[in-house]
């Protein structure tokens, strides 16, 4: 069984990273690579879909911290969507909702990008 997988799909005007499984110090480097690839392609509208993510530790949280500044300085954002209560709890424990927009629905995150784009 693979502990963690991710895949990236297009959902204009954003790219969506779908996460599955367990995001910890062992698997976080994969997410870091995925973000780096998106940034290399100049993709700065990023939604992370957590629907199938069962676990996150500080190693996973660190990846979002590593890229959010650059993404925002390029007029983009990292928006988070569809977290299970367990995973949301970890974000909440540390106050991450202060820094990140978290949506219960991926559509809403995308709509937000579309609106931002039209301003």
């Amino acid at each position, binding site marked *: 069984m693979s*502990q963690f997988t991710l895949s990236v799909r297009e959902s204009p005007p954003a790219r969506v990273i779908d996460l599955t499984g*367990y995001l*910890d*110090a*062992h698997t976080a480097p994969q997410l870091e690579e995925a973000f780096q690839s998106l940034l290399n392609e100049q993709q700065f509208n990023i939604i992370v879909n957590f629907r199938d993510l069962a*676990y996150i*530790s*500080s*190693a996973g*949280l*660190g990846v979002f*911290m*590593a890229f*959010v*500044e650059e993404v925002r300085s390029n007029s983009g954002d990292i928006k988070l969507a569809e977290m299970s209560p*367990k995973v949301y*709890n*970890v974000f909440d*424990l*540390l*106050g991450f909702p*202060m*820094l990140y927009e978290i949506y219960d629905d991926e559509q809403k995150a995308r709509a937000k990008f579309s609106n931002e784009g039209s301003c």
Partner: protein
Amino acid sequence: MQSDSKYIVRFKEGILSRTEELHRIRTVVEDEAVRFGFDRETAFRMALAVDEACTNIIKHSYSGNPRKKFEMEICTGNDRFVVVLTDYGRSFNPNSLPKLDMKRYFELCMRGGLGVHIIKLVMDDVAYHITDAHANELRLVKYLT
């Protein structure tokens, strides 16, 4: 861990200092915590705290050397669930770190440094000491209330 008739050892094993082991470690802690009577959510957080402590041993105590080992012991007594982590790497007392100011953390867009913060938020008691054999012993305690 002192031998004390009231304590039951529920798990004790040497573990290779590799992040591949974190998944199994969490499963053991979560299962034992639920078995002892914690609700699912608390057990999940306890597994998170132990993950963070083990990640630190792997990354910092042993600086990523995958040939090292540390030991995890889980024991319980009365209303107390105790995880003892023992390693033979660099010494570090997590209680020596200043409390994180999350507002400043986000303002400066910092990274890392959240593990010890999580451990302290989740566990009721975090005690570090160096044993007579010069090992680092970290005791994480959670009370069933």
